[in-house]
C-alpha cells in the first residue's frame, strides 16, 4: 500500500473523464482540451494532449476531426486496499458512525474485513481540544444530524428550536446550507439562513432542541461563497510580527486558517493582513493577545481599541491590589 501512487494521479482522472465522454459519442479536440482544463492541473494539457493525439497513449481513435475511446467506457475502479483500510479506520470514529445505523456499520465492517486499520482513535492525542465537545452517540443528536443532512441535500426548509450560546430559546424557520465541523471545539455547527432573511447564522447542533422538515424547498440558486465574502469587514486586521521566540512561524501556523497576506518589512519584521468577519472577531482578538508583545496590532481602529481596552484594564487591575472592579 502506497500513499503516493500513480493510481491516484490527476492525469488518470483526466483520461478517465475523456474516455468516458468519448465512449458515449465522438468528441472534438477542443472538448478534450476543455476536460483537461477542468480536471487537470494548470499545465496538464501540455503533457496529456500530445500523448493522446499522437497515439503514445493508444487510447483514442480519430476519424479526422473527432475522437472515440478505444477502450470503451472505463469501468469504476474498485476501492484499493488503502482506500478500504481508510474506511475500516473510520468505523472506529464516532463522527463517521453518525451517518449510519448499526446494521449499515456492520455491512461496512464486512466490506472492509480484509483490510487493516490505518489508525485507531487512541493513536492520537488532541491536547488542546475543548473538553465539552458534542455527544455523537446521543440518539437525539444523531437524529438531528440526519434530518439536517437530508434538508441540506434537498434544499429543504426546517423548523428549528434551540438554545443560543447566551441561553436564550429561539425557534424559527431556516434554510440549512452547510454543516461546519471544528476540531478545536469538537462540535458541529449548522450554517443556515432564517426564512425571509439573507443573514447567515451559526447554530450549534448541541443546542438544538427540535428540528423538523417543512414542505418548502429553495428553488433558486444560492451563492454561499459570495455571502461569506460579503460578511468580511472591508479592512483586514493589520499585524506587525516581530520574529522573537520563533513568533513568525508560530503566527503563520496559527493564522493559517484565515485568508491572509504577509510581507517582509525588514530583516526581523513582517506585516500580516488577516481577513475576518464579526463571528471571528473575538476569537482572533484572543489569539493575537496570546502572542504577547511578539505581535502588534496596527489596525483597524475598532480592533486596535479592543486590544488597548483589555490592556489598560489589565494595568488597572495590577495597580489595584484589592481586586476592585475596574471602571
Amino acid at each position: 500500500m502506497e500513499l503516493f501512487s500513480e493510481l491516484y494521479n490527476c492525469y488518470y482522472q483526466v483520461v478517465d473523464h475523456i474516455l468516458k465522454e468519448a465512449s458515449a459519442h465522438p468528441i472534438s479536440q477542443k472538448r478534450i482540451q476543455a476536460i483537461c482544463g477542468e480536471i487537470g492541473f494548470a499545465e496538464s494539457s501540455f503533457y496529456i494532449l500530445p500523448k493522446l493525439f499522437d497515439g503514445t497513449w493508444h487510447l483514442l481513435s480519430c476519424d479526422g476531426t473527432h475522437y472515440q475511446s478505444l477502450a470503451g467506457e472505463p469501468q469504476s475502479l474498485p476501492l484499493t486496499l488503502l482506500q478500504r483500510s481508510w474506511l475500516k479506520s473510520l468505523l472506529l470514529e464516532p463522527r463517521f458512525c453518525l451517518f449510519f445505523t448499526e446494521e449499515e456499520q456492520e455491512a461496512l465492517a464486512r466490506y472492509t474485513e480484509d483490510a487493516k486499520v490505518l489508525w485507531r482513535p487512541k493513536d492520537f492525542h488532541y491536547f488542546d481540544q475543548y473538553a465539552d465537545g458534542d455527544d455523537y452517540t446521543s440518539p437525539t443528536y444523531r437524529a438531528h444530524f440526519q434530518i439536517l443532512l437530508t434538508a441540506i441535500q434537498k434544499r429543504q426548509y426546517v423548523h428549528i428550536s434551540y438554545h443560543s450560546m447566551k441561553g436564550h430559546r429561539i425557534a424559527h424557520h431556516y434554510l440549512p446550507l452547510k454543516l461546519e465541523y471544528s476540531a478545536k471545539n469538537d462540535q458541529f455547527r449548522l450554517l443556515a439562513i432564517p426564512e425571509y432573511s439573507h443573514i447567515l447564522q451559526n447554530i450549534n447542533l448541541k443546542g438544538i432542541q427540535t428540528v423538523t422538515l417543512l414542505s418548502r424547498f429553495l428553488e433558486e440558486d444560492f451563492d454561499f461563497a459570495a455571502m461569506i465574502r460579503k460578511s468580511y469587514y472591508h479592512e483586514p486586521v493589520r499585524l506587525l510580527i516581530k520574529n522573537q521566540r520563533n513568533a513568525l512561524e508560530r503566527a503563520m501556523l496559527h493564522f493559517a486558517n484565515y485568508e491572509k497576506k504577509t510581507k517582509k518589512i525588514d530583516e526581523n519584521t513582517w506585516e500580516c493582513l488577516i481577513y475576518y468577519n464579526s463571528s471571528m472577531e473575538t476569537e482572533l482578538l484572543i489569539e493575537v493577545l496570546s502572542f504577547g508583545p511578539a505581535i502588534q496590532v496596527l489596525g483597524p481602529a475598532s480592533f486596535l481599541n479592543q486590544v488597548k481596552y483589555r490592556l489598560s484594564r489589565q494595568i488597572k487591575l495590577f495597580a489595584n491590589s484589592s481586586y476592585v472592579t475596574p471602571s
Partner: protein
Amino acid sequence: MSDYQELIKSFQKSRNYVRDFLIYGFKSRDDFSQKSGRTYDNERRRIESWLHEYIHASYTPQGKTVSLALDSNLLHTNPLYRVWKSRSFTDNDIMLHFFFLSLFHSEDTTYTAEDLTNHILDNYQVLFEAQLVRKKANEYVKEGILSSHRDGRRKLYRRTKTLQEALPTLFPLLLLAVSFCQLTMPLGFVGSTILDNQRVANYIFLVKHGYYGFTLEDEILFSLLSAIHTHHMVTVLNRSNRTSYTKEEQFTIVPYKIFISTRTGRRFLCGYLPARQRFSTLRLDQIQKVTLLEPFEDYLFFQEKLEKNIPFCFGVSFGISHHMDQIRLTLFIQEGIEDYILTRLRREGRGGTITHIEKNTYSYEISVFDGNELMPFIKTFIGRILSFETNNAFLRRKFYQDIDEMAKMYQIIKE
C-alpha cells in the same frame, strides 16, 4: 527548462517547498538559498500549476513572491491533496490501467497474464510483453484492485468488487460520509481519492479552524502509525528550520502517539527515547525520513508510563527537569455577566482546578511539566488577571515583562 515535468517521482522534495509557500507565503527566489535558482523556478512552476486556483502572486522590491491563499471558511476539500495526485508514471502504466479497466468489465471475468496480453493485442492493437502485463497485474493484486487464484498451474486474475457492487444501497450515504471525513479525518487524502473515483465532490461540509498543511506530513504519519501498531522502534531524520539556522539530527525513538494541536494543525510524534531514557515529542513537519527498526521489548511498560504522564503535559513538552511547574492564576470574573469566562476556563483549562475565592474572583490552578506552554493561554485572559503566581521564577518574570512590554507598545503606559 527542458527537464521540467509537471509530475514528480518523490513527494519529499516538493513537500518542503509547498509548506514554505503555504505557511510563509512571502518568500522570494532569494529566500530559498539552499537550492539552486533553477530548482526554485521548477518547484514554483509546479506548485503554481498544481494549485493554480489558490495561488496569489505579488511583486515586491525583493522580487516575485508566491503564496497560497486558502480561506478555510470556503473550502470543501483540502487543496493540498492535489500535491498527492502528482505521481509520475510511464506510458505503459496508463495504457495498461485503462485496458485492465475495460477488460475486467465484470467481477466474474478471469484472465491469465497471457490472456490479458492477447486480448490487449486483439482489442487495442498494442503489443506488450506478457511479463510486463503480469507485473502490472500483480501490482494491482497488491493494491487490492485485482485478486488472483490458482487453477492448476494457471494463475487467474479477477477484479475485486466495486463500491457500487459491494454496497449498492449504502453507496450514496457512504459517499456523503466520505465527503465529510476527507476533510476532517487522518489521511483524508485517501478519502478524496474515493470521491475522485466516483466523480463526487463535497458540497455540504466545511471546517472551521482548518489547517491544511498537515497533509504534507501524511507519508511520515503513515509510516509512524504502522510502527506504533507493530510496537517497532524507528529512526527518524529530523530537520529543524529555525529562521536563523537549520539543524539535522537523527533519533532512535519508540513511537507511541501522535499529538495534534487543533489550534495550529501541528502534529508531533510522541515517543520514548531509549538513549536519553525519557519521553519526547518531535514535530512531524520536521521529520524528513522514518526507518523501521526492530520491535521494542518493553513497549507496553512504557506505554503505561506515558498514559500516566500525559495529564501533566499542557501541550507537547515533558519538561527538562524533574520538578513540576505549579501555576496559579487569579481572575476577575463578574458573576452572572461573564460566566462565559468560567466556561472557557473549564473547557480550555485541560484539567486545571477552578476555585471560587470570593465574589467575582476565581482561581485556576494546574501542575504541569512545562509551564511555559501555558503562557499563550494565560495571555488570552489579559484584562481580567488579578495575579499570576508560579514556583517558576523565570515564567513569573517573563509574564510580567510581557504585559509591561505590551502596555508600552500600545502606549498604555510610558516607556
